[in-house]
């Protein structure tokens, strides 16, 4: 055995009969902590499951290497730890091998790392797995959730949400009490999504049944839940939709306020408003402002379309003299269900910078984890931060870096650097947090700023010193953490 890190054979168990066409050997990885995200300083371990389905050969070797993931065009990953361990697995059995990947002393903290595990038999590789992992500290919230912009559709893994810095969750509302208690304990505010509003909209439920449910829910659980959302993604595209939508909002709002006058009612979400912009004016004309405390939208379109949509939303609010906070309780990358993880992770920076700069107060990323469905529904897993096997994707570290850098910051300005270039500045404690990327070709950008050390934060969470004042904006967004305010960008 040659190993920089410890690899231990834990146990063997018998397998069910091999199916026709099964590979002789199989390799699977299991996270020993949720998402394989560990406390800083803790030893990072995973389990490799080696299955010998049909091979007469017992002896095999599990090897691994843990490395970072640089994003530059010619950058080479740095291997931090590696090791290998022989295993003996009889035909029809499996063995679990613990792989120690390293600790906070040997591995970078707060950034996305990958472990590649290979299984070899008779000197030939027979299986290989690549998974993400890393280290993130639990962050005890210092301010109320109401001051945070960062939501995530999760409804699970509360301690992990603290590692991510998520402060809002939007579960499908039910009467399971334990998640409510965890939500309160971990200071992740629940926005209870009452799907019965959609049933009332569709007349699958009577208005009385719906309002009774809202009244009962709010009355029964107001000690846990203050924020209630009345429905998801209504059909406001048909001309009779907005009127019906507002009617459902009115009934639910009145029921919720009867049960708890202090509660906050988030209006039912409207998605893809760009399909028919007139729907927004029709909602406001029907009196929506009177029947919610917050407007809510979902943004899944590209940034240019999203900008047009937000402009229509603000214009409608202005013309109806109906100002209220605006939230976005769902957003994801473009394309939503395709593309690469790197592109998706980039959209975490892009979406938040773009939406917060447009006076959207709270933004929820869709989603922490998505079930393993077949077909179209399964493709939505692309939006998830954690994969089906419960390992972190790159975007875990994007989200955690974003929240760490921008929590408590305020939007200050958007710099005009030409078409397709986004330079969006936030300020916190004398430092500027400048989001920079381009939707087109890479473009050199010069940044004039006060003297002092600066850093560039990549979507992997990697933090590196910022040298000089000129850098190239690419489709991979970065956060520049520099002394502020920035004097010029161009």
């Amino acid at each position, binding site marked *: 055995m040659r190993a920089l890190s410890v690899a231990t054979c834990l146990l063997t168990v018998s397998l069910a009969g091999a199916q026709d066409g099964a590979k002789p050997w199989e390799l699977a990885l299991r996270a020993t902590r949720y998402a394989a995200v560990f406390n800083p300083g803790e030893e990072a371990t995973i389990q490799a499951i080696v299955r010998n389905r049909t091979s007469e050969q017992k002896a095999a070797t599990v090897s691994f290497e843990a490395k970072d993931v640089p994003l530059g065009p010619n950058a080479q990953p740095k291997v931090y730890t590696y090791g290998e361990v022989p295993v003996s697995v009889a035909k029809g059995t499996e063995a679990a091998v613990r792989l120690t990947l390293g600790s906070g002393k040997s591995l970078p903290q707060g950034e996305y790392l990958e472990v590649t595990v290979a299984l070899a038999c008779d000197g030939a590789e027979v299986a290989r797995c690549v998974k993400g992992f890393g280290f993130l500290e639990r962050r005890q919230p210092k301010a109320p959730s109401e001051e945070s912009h960062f939501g995530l*559709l*999760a*409804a*699970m893994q*509360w*301690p992990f949400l603290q590692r991510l810095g998520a402060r809002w*969750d*939007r*579960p*499908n*509302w*039910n*009467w*399971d*009490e*334990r998640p409510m*208690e*965890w939500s309160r*304990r971990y200071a992740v505010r629940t926005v209870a*999504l009452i*799907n019965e509003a959609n049933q009332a*909209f*569709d*007349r699958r439920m009577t208005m009385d049944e719906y309002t009774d449910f809202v009244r009962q*829910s709010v009355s029964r659980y107001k000690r846990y839940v203050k924020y209630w959302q009345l429905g*998801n*993604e209504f*059909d406001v*595209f*048909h*001309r*009779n*939709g907005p009127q019906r939508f507002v009617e459902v909002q009115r009934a639910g709002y009145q029921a919720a306020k009867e049960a708890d006058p202090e509660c906050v009612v988030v209006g039912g979400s409207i*998605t*893809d408003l760009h*399909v*028919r912009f*007139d*729907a927004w004016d029709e909602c406001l004309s029907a009196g929506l402002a009177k029947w919610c405390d917050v407007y809510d939208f*979902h943004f*899944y379109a590209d940034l240019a379309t999203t900008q047009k949509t937000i402009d229509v939303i603000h214009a409608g609010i202005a013309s109806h003299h109906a100002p209220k906070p605006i939230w976005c*309780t*769902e957003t*994801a990358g473009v394309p*939503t*269900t395709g593309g690469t993880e790197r592109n998706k992770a980039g959209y975490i920076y892009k979406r938040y910078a773009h939406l917060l700069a447009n006076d959207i107060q709270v933004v929820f990323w*869709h*989603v*922490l*984890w*998505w*079930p393993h*469905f077949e*077909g*179209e*529904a399964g*493709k*939505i897993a692309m*939006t998830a931060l954690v994969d089906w096997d419960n390992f972190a994707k790159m975007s875990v570290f994007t989200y955690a870096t974003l929240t760490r850098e921008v929590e408590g910051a305020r939007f200050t300005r958007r710099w005009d650097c030409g078409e397709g270039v986004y330079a969006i500045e936030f300020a916190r404690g004398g430092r500027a947090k400048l989001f920079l990327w381009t939707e087109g070709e890479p473009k050199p950008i010069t940044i004039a700023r006060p003297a002092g050390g600066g850093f560039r934060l990549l979507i992997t969470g990697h933090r590196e010193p910022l040298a000089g004042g000129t850098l190239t904006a690419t489709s991979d967004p970065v956060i520049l953490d520099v002394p502020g305010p920035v004097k010029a960008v161009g």
Partner: protein
Amino acid sequence: MTTPSRSVALGVAFLAALAAQGAGRTDWPAGVLNYCGFEGRWDEAGWRDSAWMQGGIPEIDFDANTKVHGRYSLRIIGSPDEDRYAIQLAGNDIDAAKVYVFQGWVKTDNVQGTAKVAALAHGEKGPLDWVNLGPGALFTGTRDWTRFELPLRSFPEGSKRVYLYAMVRGTGTAWFDEFSLAEEGVEVPLGGEKVYTDADYAGLRFDDGALAENLLQGPGFEEGLGSWVAEVGTPVIDRKVAGEGTASLRIDAEPEGRCVVYQRVRLDPRRAYRLSLSLKTELRLGLSCIRVIPFRADGSGFGWWFVQDHTSEFLHGRGRSGWRREEIVLRHLRPETDYVVVYLTLEDAEGKAWFDDVRLTPLSLAETKAVAGQ
């Protein structure tokens, strides 16, 4: 977006949600891929009008006065200038080797041109060709409600999905109602919903005269875990602290830790059940509870998982409390329920909880009717 997961919140874009809705529903008879009664709302079973992106048009709408069944039908008033139609936008996964039957009702009033129903086959990468439904898919002139049953026998090569249409080309008015797509030989009841007979109930059949007092094995833990399985964590058989008998099950909780002990119980889904236990808690943080989750015989669950009252969590333990007896009646199970899993659980908490004499007691059919309010 909306997901049937119990623990993941909703969401994704509108069309994706429609796609998910296209999946087979459990309340349709087996073999039915799609059923739409056009009951007054778009997106029912994935159906949309062709004009939805323009906000819809009154010429494609629902009609409460002219219908075969239910509250509404779909009415399309034709135009000489454009095709007007509704489409089952989510599509239906098919096995091209099978024969399917597209059924429904059509009524026409002075249709000059054609009212028609159609099926478009798609492959992996998009549309392939229309499926030949023959002349029975075309309707002209004026006729009262007419039943159509059109077999889909032959699909273009590479067909994976089929999308259904109801259309008017030309002038005049057509009404459509009670559409279904089903495998050949499958009877589709009017209204679409499966009618349950006693034979449709899964699970076991208990005799009212010989009902067991408790379906759970080893309820008092005197013999250790016995039929209970520790799914995660390290439960303790406590022989010093017991609510009944000489032992109990103790879970020592710690923050972020999990301990779940479960037992799988086959039962008679026609009945209500009384779930009860003796419980003692010394909890500084968190809640213990019993979760009950029903399953079909093939091990699949029921989407939202809830048993009743919008939850699957019952009989919570909290704070410091000496031994007490708690109970709840589970009033209704879905007919397809073959078994339930009863979980004793204490997760991400601080302190201890003791469980003892856990019981799942079937009620008589008369008692079941009474608790169900029938």
